[in-house]
């Protein structure tokens, strides 16, 4: 038995908002792979829960009227990976969430839970940052949308106001049209591990594949919350597709990131890894775009 004080099951999004308003101290439980573990560990023992797991209206991936990719917040990692829309437009997101935990965890874990945790190591987060994802929140005042970098406030804290729940993650069309990306998770084990660092890069090349029109890069575990490396993005913008551009891009990330020492990895190791991952992910993203940096991978 879990140490749960009370549990309320939401029957619709409106009902969830109502329950959250009536029980301001309650914790939302989606798939539960974090919340239940925290209850077991004692960190959330005696919690009041509002379960939204049964809300099928918050599952699935679709293209909205503006051509944006809309991912219902309760969509599981494995369903995102298998989804044809994701495979077609944002393949790297499907690949990134396929690195979470193990197979059973990917069947229960949700993209909404992964982002609402506010954890920097979340495998979906760096890729969502790198693709300028928009978070949709539904609350007593209706629906509001905000860029993902504004949603993350600090480690473990996101902009989820009283009575609100996250209902969707949206990737605008202009974020993915013409872009290809690559995500690398650096961890000690192949499964059931948390990233020591995660790096997601996506690029758009000029039509003749000779220049970088735009490059975007985001990290998990390079700071207290997932973050973009804007200096690197600026450094690569407009440059020729080459080994040199790749090196300049990768070195520039050090101006942006601020990793710390932890038992998982030291600051020095993380800084080293950040540059290597940027280089490798950039090359792969360029290759997926149909471009080629002159020399082969280091």
């Amino acid at each position, binding site marked *: 038995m879990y140490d749960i004080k009370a549990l309320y099951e939401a029957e619709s999004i409106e009902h969830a908002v109502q329950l959250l308003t009536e029980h301001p101290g309650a914790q939302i439980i989606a798939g539960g792979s974090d919340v239940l573990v925290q209850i077991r560990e004692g960190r959330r023992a005696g919690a009041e829960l509002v379960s939204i*797991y049964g809300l099928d209206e918050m599952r699935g991936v679709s293209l909205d009227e503006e051509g944006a990719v809309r991912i219902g917040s309760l969509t599981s990692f494995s369903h995102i990976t298998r989804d044809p829309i994701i495979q077609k437009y944002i393949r790297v997101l499907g690949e990134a969430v396929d690195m979470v935990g*193990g197979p059973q965890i990917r069947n229960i874990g949700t993209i909404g839970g992964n982002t609402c945790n506010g954890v920097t190591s979340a495998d979906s987060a760096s890729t969502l940052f790198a693709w300028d994802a928009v978070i949709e929140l539904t609350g007593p005042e209706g629906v509001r949308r905000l860029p993902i970098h504004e949603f993350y406030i600090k480690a473990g804290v996101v902009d989820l106001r009283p009575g609100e729940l996250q209902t969707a993650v949206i990737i605008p069309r202009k974020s993915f049209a013409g872009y290809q990306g690559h995500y690398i998770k650096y961890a000690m084990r192949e499964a059931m591990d948390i990233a020591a660092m995660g790096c997601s890069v996506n690029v758009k090349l000029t039509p003749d594949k000779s220049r970088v029109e735009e490059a975007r890069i985001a990290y998990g575990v390079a700071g207290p919350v997932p973050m973009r490396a804007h200096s690197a993005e600026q450094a690569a913008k407009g440059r020729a597709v080459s080994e040199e551009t790749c090196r300049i891009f990768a070195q520039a990330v050090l101006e942006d990131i601020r990793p710390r020492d932890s038992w998982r990895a030291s600051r020095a190791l993380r800084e080293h890894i950040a540059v290597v991952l940027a280089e490798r992910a950039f090359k792969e993203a360029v290759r997926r775009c149909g471009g080629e940096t002159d020399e082969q991978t280091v």
Partner: protein
Amino acid sequence: MSRQYKLVSCTINGKQAEKMVDVRASLTDMLRDDFRLTSVKKGCEVGECGACNVIIDGECFNSCIYLAIWADGKEILTLEGLAGPDGELSDIQQAFIDETAVQCGFCTPGFIMSAAALLNAGREFTDDEIRRQMSGHLCRCTGYENIFRAVKKTMLRRLGKEKEAEEV
């Protein structure tokens, strides 16, 4: 607050089942305590070891981090549901015995349910894919190689590749 209960109706191993469950119960609690399905093991109880793995609507879940109330309306399959009507072992269970993929046996039911989900896909997986599909389980006895062999052989046999299965 007084105890809170919910009526859960689901299908367990092909049979319709109904039970009033405590909202605090995990699906492991429900399957073991209310239905005596003790193949569902309590291992780590935080979703890391896979000993409590069951199939729900065709997908694998660690039942220790799955609330029992969520089982309402679902179709659940545990290891007990793999055996025939008179308790005959299924091919994958027999393969675990033949390949000595079982030592202490605690991780075995969970592993076999992941194998069952893989086999149900009805296609051939590469060695890497098999290892990945089975990666949500910890075994402290076998070193995994015999488990891998049992799964691969059964997969090939089901696809009619008896000769390839012998060579694994």
